[in-house]
């Protein structure tokens, strides 16, 4: 607290009389603490004045805008678990220009369900110098995305690993190697086809005997 008390504020606001003002300035010349406090008050006042110099909105300045309330709600929602219906697409940057209001019938959608839809256009609202409205939600989703990525990478690794192991393990033959029993097969065929069971089909007959010519019918 300064030595001048409320008079310091009055001094900064230019509300003191002539004599009072001279006395206050004399004190400021001698008191560094009050001088510093007066400087801070002036800077604050200057900043507030600069805010008031911005172009007025559509006459709704007197009341908090819907956008302001929405952003306040979003700050609260950011601390809660994300809804499962939240889209997984990349978050829209706070500085990204919004789509034209005509393309988005914001009034037809509840602000709580689709906050971004109710965001007014930049021309219809004061310049937003505050931090992005949904940084906490973005951080929460950004934390969950690596988790999903890890899950996908793990599943792919498991699939590829299992496939590789299966391919390597399946290299050998499953059934035993067999050799046809030609002699036995020949006998079996002869008995079913009416041939002699003594023919040795795998040995070329060395005896090429002339065959009696069958009579022509």
């Amino acid at each position, binding site marked *: 607290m300064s030595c001048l008390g409320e008079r310091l504020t009055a001094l900064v606001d230019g509300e003191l009389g002539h004599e009072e003002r001279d006395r206050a300035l004399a004190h400021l010349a001698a008191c560094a603490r009050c001088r510093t406090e007066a400087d801070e008050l002036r800077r604050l006042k200057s900043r507030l004045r600069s805010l008031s110099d911005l172009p007025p909105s559509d006459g709704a300045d007197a009341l908090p805008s819907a956008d302001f309330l929405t952003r306040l709600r979003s700050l609260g929602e950011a601390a809660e678990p994300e809804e499962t219906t939240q889209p997984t697409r990349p978050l829209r940057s706070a500085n990204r220009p919004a789509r034209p209001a005509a393309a988005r019938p914001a009034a037809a959608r509840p602000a709580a369900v689709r906050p971004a839809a109710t965001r007014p256009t930049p021309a219809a609202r004061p310049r937003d110098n505050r931090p992005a409205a949904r940084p906490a939600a973005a951080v929460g989703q950004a934390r969950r995305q690596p988790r999903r990525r890890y899950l996908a990478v793990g599943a792919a690794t498991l699939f590829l690993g299992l496939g590789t192991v299966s391919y390597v393990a399946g290299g050998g033959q499953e059934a035993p190697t067999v050799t*046809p029993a030609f002699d036995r097969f020949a006998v079996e065929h002869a008995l079913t086809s009416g041939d002699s069971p003594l023919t040795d089909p795998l040995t070329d007959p060395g005896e090429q005997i002339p065959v009696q010519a069958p009579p022509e019918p």
Partner: protein
Amino acid sequence: MTGTNATVRGGRPPRGRSRWSGVLVGGLTAALAIAAALAGDTGTVRRVRSDPEAVRLLRAATGAAQRVPYEGRRFLTTWSSRRTSTSTVRVTHTPGDGTYYQSDSDGRAYQPDAAAFWGGSYGFTSETLTLLTRNYTVVRAPDAAVCGRPAQVVEARRPDGSPAGRFWLDTETGLMLHRELIDAAGHRVAATGFTEVNLAAERGGRGTLRAGRSPTKAPARTPVDAPAKGIADGAVPATLWADRLDGAELAELRDNGWPVPRSLPGRLKLYDARRPQSGGDVVHLSYSDGLAAVSVFVQHGNLDDRRFGDWQKTGKRDRTVFRREALQRWAVSAGNGYVYTVLTDAPQSTADAVARTLPRDGTPFWRRLGRGFRRVGSWINPFG
């Protein structure tokens, strides 16, 4: 909408209805075409007009082969583009006992009548006769003579009228003396029969030879009651695998993954399947079109290629077939964990086509992957 309906009612057929009618007609046509294709040779069946007397003669040959005692020398000759191969064997049949075979290389075999698959050496089963009359036109041909004996000739003709097979049946006893298999070009493919034969009398007149050939001209022969002697001499009993598979057992085999086709190229139909009584991973599938007999032996396992060094290896449509054309035609292929051995008296092309038709391996990558996955599963399965 009203305007559209008015236009439709005005005379132009409704486009949607017309389209649906077209689809319906097309579908019915396709269904009929598919049904005709599945029915196989239905048209052929209708075209066949077999001579009942010719069919009766062939059926009678089955009984004659069991009933008539005979002795003689039988041959099997096959023709290929490169050479002619012949095998001969002495044969003696005693009704009620069996048939005794003795080869020139002193190989001996004895086939008891009780274990004969069908009517002795030349018999037809009802199944093969049905296939014969279904696929061919069976007619009588002018009589002839075989081994000095008068014979009735039956000819099986293709739908185009060309001969596909001929049978010479002894006029007196009905025994089949000779038969031939003829390809579409008119060339003989295989022939079997007697080069010399003596037919003994029926049971009542045993010992009295009524053969056409003079006994003095006949070569030295084994007495009719020689089988007992033959068995005593160490003839090996030649019997079929005893476990004949019925329809349910074949269905079970198919369910277990065994390839058991019901038909094969060339109108070959499965008419018999059997396996050894002792089991084993082998099944003998017998196919026929009524004339040609094709045996397919299916074994569970993989083929050892080194065994086929002296076989001709052919690769067609990514299918490797080992073939050998000797007295009979062999073709061996493998696929899906099974080995197929095809044996036939029909032309080599038939054996090759059958071996190539049988199930082949799937995609090697996926087959190997699946096999490995099953193995890994069995490793980690505590109950496996």
